[in-house]
């Protein structure tokens, strides 16, 4: 994989944007599908050996996304702050 970290997280953010869209449309199935795609992309990022010294934050992001997918709201975090988290990466990756 030759994507930068910003690009990788940017792609995760794109799926979270879709999840947020479907959440607003009250379509839980589509929301969950988008969250699963986000998790798949994030898992690929976690496997990228270039980021092995930065796993802590990436793993925490994964944990939070899993919580949202499972509707386990032990963390007081909705999709909006996660979109705010991902957006700077997306902007940066688009130069």
């Amino acid at each position, binding site marked *: 994989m030759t994507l930068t*970290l*910003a690009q990788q997280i940017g792609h995760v953010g794109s799926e979270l944007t879709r999840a947020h869209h479907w959440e607003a449309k009250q379509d839980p199935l589509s929301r969950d599908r988008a969250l699963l795609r986000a998790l798949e992309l994030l898992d690929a990022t976690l496997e990228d050996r270039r980021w092995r*010294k*930065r796993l*802590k*934050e*990436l793993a*925490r*992001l994964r944990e*939070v996304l899993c919580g949202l997918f499972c509707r386990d709201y*032990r*963390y*007081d*975090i909705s999709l909006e*702050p996660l979109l*705010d*988290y991902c957006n*700077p990466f997306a*902007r*940066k990756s688009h130069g």
Partner: protein
Amino acid sequence: MRIEIIQSPTPLQELKRLAEENYGDMVKGVVDVQRKILALGGELHADGEALLLEEGSQQEDLWGFNLYPEKPKDERIEFSSLINIRPSQGNTSMTIQDARLKEDAKMIIEGFIKDDG
């Protein structure tokens, strides 16, 4: 992205330059509320956190934030970071849930911003 340890007040213009080098309008930061120092820069908050830990900081004293130097004074600092999620300290959000701790952290950060003019 370069990370700088900030231990003295820094001109706002310098912080704007730092933001430009990072996310354009924003630079990520980590504040040590005990040692009263900052790490500014880095692609992830965890990068600044790791640097401060290497420099002797304690995990429990470190809180992540985003700095927007171009914004009005009361909108410059945003406490939103994945490293702030710390169940062991009762913080289950990306922000700092303890109002007093949040205010203390904000004051420490503001003390490092030397406004222009």
